[in-house]
């Protein structure tokens, strides 16, 4: 029966990828518009392709090095480490390394396809929206669905195939680590790229020269539009792919750690949830349609809610008919509900419909300092509902599962995380829609389309911003539950080696670990944001140089050299990743090998707590400042160009690296650190100084 589920999983993954390919070709059949529009889209497409090429070269190098290390380390029978004699099984090391590479490649393919369709759909959405908002919306959302469906499809194929072939969830850990490695490069690199271009384009274009947003005279305008894709499509997709796989493998490891005849059944249960999630997303996507009111936001929200209901019904049927303990149903549902609720509470703090954004816009009349203080304070407050949601999901799933006497409490938490992420197909579809319509608006502007098209593209864009904010809240909460499960998996792996993990605050090694771990997310944030400012200054110099050497650019007679800025952003983003990557991969190993497993446990705990807090604060405060500025631009408190607007622009600029660089990258950071720790836990258990 287990094998059948795994084969069904592979088949479902293929169906999901097939549906994505169908949508890809549907999008490609849409009208690509005038020659001018196509030319602008081509600039963006070529910029995105050149960044992806560099990213994948960097990934290949990382894969070769890490794959080699993994192949060697896992060639040894880790269960015998420290016993005096260790058997060498080279095949095991090769399988682990292959799983690692497979994970990275699967995530890369999903990102490639997602971004490939996004840079084709942007211009098509701009053309379609000139007919109607509904048409423009459909093109953008179906293009976003290509990313969502490919991502979940490839993830499920990968996990099911590995478990079918090896029967060991630990090998899926390698797959997950591969996906996380790409996610770290894609998310942090994409975040640095997008904000480097955005800030440089604004500082010189808007402030020094006085040209508006998306003006084709700005040499950084293409890099800015490319950045939307590499940060929000490829980056966010890789991030959720990573959390999706990590949560599943964590729950599988915890299922495998349970004793009893049903251990295997519960080990595979997370995979079955993923399979059901694929079908729920496939059906849910059909319900996403803009109604007569022409509002895309409610259409996206309706699709998410419908997907949840369908998924909930499917899981109920599975648990009742499949003979699973009812606690698995409650754990799944609590994760699902909390995920959606946290997503929508994020909307409260970042949407211009509600008090936090309105209040921040109102006080902007008094200057940028008050804008920053107010937005930051609401950002801090926004932590509250998400943390309460995470606490509720953790406690409810733990105690219900413990009370069942069938599954462990910690397994329940793992299932809760999987429940939250199971509808990722739908969530990523909505998220990837955002940068596509953002680009569509930019293309409409750059290609000189009629103002009515820009107005309609604005309607699509504003719904995309809200969708992005909801996804960020969702992905941070999901990552928090995932790493809690991974944390437990780490402890299980260590204890399986006969070493008791004692994570007590009375232990000075644990205290040291907690402090070091708690320090890591802020340091990581600082490094990535400093990279943005450093790279932005290089790009600013380039933009100034072009304006100075070719005055015809500003006069609109000569096109700027867009490729220079695209290249600077790509090179700067990837070369800035060395230190942050060391923090994510090297620091946990350093702490583990030097201070031991207890300290590493404390390290992970500290990193998880500050990571979640920082991620929520930065993402929400950044989104809030962005929308406060947009709210002023609607004509409130003086509108564009007013003193309130100038303060709003400062807030937005501060918030940009918060919400698009550091904040969302922290999910990946804590996931990578937890995965590295779990993967190398047996080695750390055998070799540590303290």
């Amino acid at each position, binding site marked *: 029966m287990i094998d059948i589920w795994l084969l069904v999983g592979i088949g479902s993954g293929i169906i999901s990828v097939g549906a994505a390919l169908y949508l890809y070709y549907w999008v490609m059949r849409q009208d690509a518009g005038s020659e001018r529009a196509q030319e602008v889209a081509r600039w963006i497409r070529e910029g995105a392709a050149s960044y992806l090429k560099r990213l994948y070269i960097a990934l290949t190098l990382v894969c070769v090095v890490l794959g080699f290390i993994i192949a060697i380390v896992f060639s040894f029978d880790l269960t015998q480490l420290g016993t005096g004699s260790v058997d060498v099984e080279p095949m095991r090391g090769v399988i682990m390394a292959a799983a690692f590479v497979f994970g990275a490649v699967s995530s890369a393919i999903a990102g490639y396809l997602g971004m490939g369709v996004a840079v084709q759909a942007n211009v098509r959405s701009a053309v379609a929206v000139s007919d109607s908002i509904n048409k423009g919306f459909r093109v953008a959302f179906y293009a976003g669905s290509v990313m969502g469906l490919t991502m979940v499809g490839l993830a499920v194929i990968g996990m099911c195939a590995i478990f079918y072939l090896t029967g060991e969830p630990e090998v899926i850990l390698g797959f997950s680590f591969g996906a996380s490695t790409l996610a770290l490069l894609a998310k942090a690199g994409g975040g640095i790229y997008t904000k480097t271009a955005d800030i440089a384009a604004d500082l010189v274009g*808007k402030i020094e*020269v*006085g*040209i*508006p947003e998306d*003006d084709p*005279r700005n040499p950084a305008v293409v890099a800015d539009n490319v950045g939307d894709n590499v940060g929000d499509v490829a980056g966010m997709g890789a991030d959720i792919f990573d959390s999706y796989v990590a949560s599943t493998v964590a729950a599988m490891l915890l299922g495998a750690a349970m004793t009893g005849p049903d251990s295997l059944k519960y080990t595979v249960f997370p995979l079955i949830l993923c399979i059901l999630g694929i079908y729920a997303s496939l059906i849910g996507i059909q319900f996403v349609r803009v109604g007569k009111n022409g509002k895309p936001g409610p259409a996206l929200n309706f699709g998410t809610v419908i997907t949840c209901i369908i998924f909930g019904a499917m899981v109920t049927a599975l648990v009742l008919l499949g003979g699973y303990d009812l606690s698995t149903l409650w754990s799944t549902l609590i994760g699902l509900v909390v995920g959606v609720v946290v997503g929508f509470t994020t909307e409260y703090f970042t949407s211009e419909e509600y008090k936090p954004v309105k209040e921040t816009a109102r006080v902007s*009349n008094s200057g940028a300092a008050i804008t920053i203080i107010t937005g930051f304070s609401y950002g801090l407050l926004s932590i509250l509902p998400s943390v309460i949601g995470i606490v509720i999901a953790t406690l409810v799933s733990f105690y219900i599962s413990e009370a069942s006497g069938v599954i462990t409490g910690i397994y329940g938490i793992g299932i809760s995380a999987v429940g939250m992420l199971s509808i990722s197909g739908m969530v990523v579809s909505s998220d990837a829609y955002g940068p596509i319509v953002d680009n569509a608006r930019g293309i409409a502007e750059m290609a000189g389309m009629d*103002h009515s098209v*820009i107005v309609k593209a604005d309607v699509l864009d504003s719904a995309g911003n809200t969708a992005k904010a909801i996804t960020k809240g969702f992905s941070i909460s999901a990552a928090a539950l995932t790493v809690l499960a991974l944390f437990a998996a780490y402890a299980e792996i260590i204890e399986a080696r006969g070493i008791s993990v004692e994570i007590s605050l009375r232990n000075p090694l644990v205290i040291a670990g907690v402090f070091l771990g708690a320090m890591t997310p802020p340091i990581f944030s600082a490094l990535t944001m400093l990279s943005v400012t450093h790279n932005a200054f290089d790009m600013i110099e380039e933009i100034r140089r072009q304006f100075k050497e070719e*005055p*015809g650019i*500003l*006069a*609109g007679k000569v096109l700027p050299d867009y490729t220079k800025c695209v290249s600077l952003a790509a090179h700067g983003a990837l070369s800035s990743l060395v230190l942050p990557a060391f923090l994510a991969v090297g620091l946990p190993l350093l702490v583990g090998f030097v201070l031991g497993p207890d300290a590493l446990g404390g390290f992970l705990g500290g990193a998880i707590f500050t990571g979640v807090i920082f991620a929520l604060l930065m993402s929400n405060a950044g989104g809030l400042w962005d929308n406060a500025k947009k709210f002023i631009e609607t004509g409130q*408190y*003086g*509108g*564009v*160009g*007013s*003193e309130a607007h100038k303060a709003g622009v400062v807030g937005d600029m501060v918030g940009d690296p918060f919400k698009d660089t550091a904040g969302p990258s922290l999910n990946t950071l804590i996931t990578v650190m937890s995965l590295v720790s779990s993967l190398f836990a047996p080695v750390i258990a055998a070799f540590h100084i303290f």
Partner: protein
Amino acid sequence: MTVHLYLSLIPEALIASMLSPEEFGAYYAVGTQKKSRGQAIFFEIDPKFRSDFFHIEEGVKRCVVHEDGSPKSSIYISVYRVLENIPVDAIQSLYLTTQDGRTLGLDKSTQFPEDEGGLHLYREISPVSPLVVSSQGPKGFYELIVKNPTSLIKLPAVCFAELRLGDLAEDPQKGKIGDLPYKNMEHLRNCLVSLKTKFVMTKMVDRLPSNGIPFRTVKNGFFVGNQKKMLFFPLPDEKELVSKHYQWWRSATM
């Protein structure tokens, strides 16, 4: 090639140029040759206009194409006291150029805006450029500072724009603050209140406004007049600007 005569208001200058108004605006604002930067406001003057005060003929003669065949961008004929020495009848269209070189042309209108009452905010553009509040409508303000001044101060000619005061026009003490081209709101309120409580018809708010000409806050248009006559150049409303002059409007509202 045709030689145009332009009366620039920032700075005040009479210029001969082979560029069309749109090209001249871009050239003037983003400085393809001279590296000069910033907003521009200029009138096109009747090309037949001649005056003993200016060496126009000499300037026109020097305005010849370059060796490579490109048009001559500018020959400065005169700076300082230009506006007062050009009869308003010689003034044709008004052009507003944004800081990034987008130009909007405005034609004169025979119809002046009606005075809606309340208080007014004016930005003088030439020959001096303070921000002033007044209890007088545009015509009254022009009469007050050019034709029939009640004090010793008298301008030979003036160009100014009325800016939107919003709710403050009726209720300077408690009115809601909208988009205003001045940061110190309390000071602005005090100036407006003094128009109601003291026997003054104008009050200077800011001697040297630092934010250029805020096109986005212009209420109805631009006024230019001398001892004899005043002209009015209405600015289209926001709806028309957005639909017909979108590129200019975007740059103007930066």
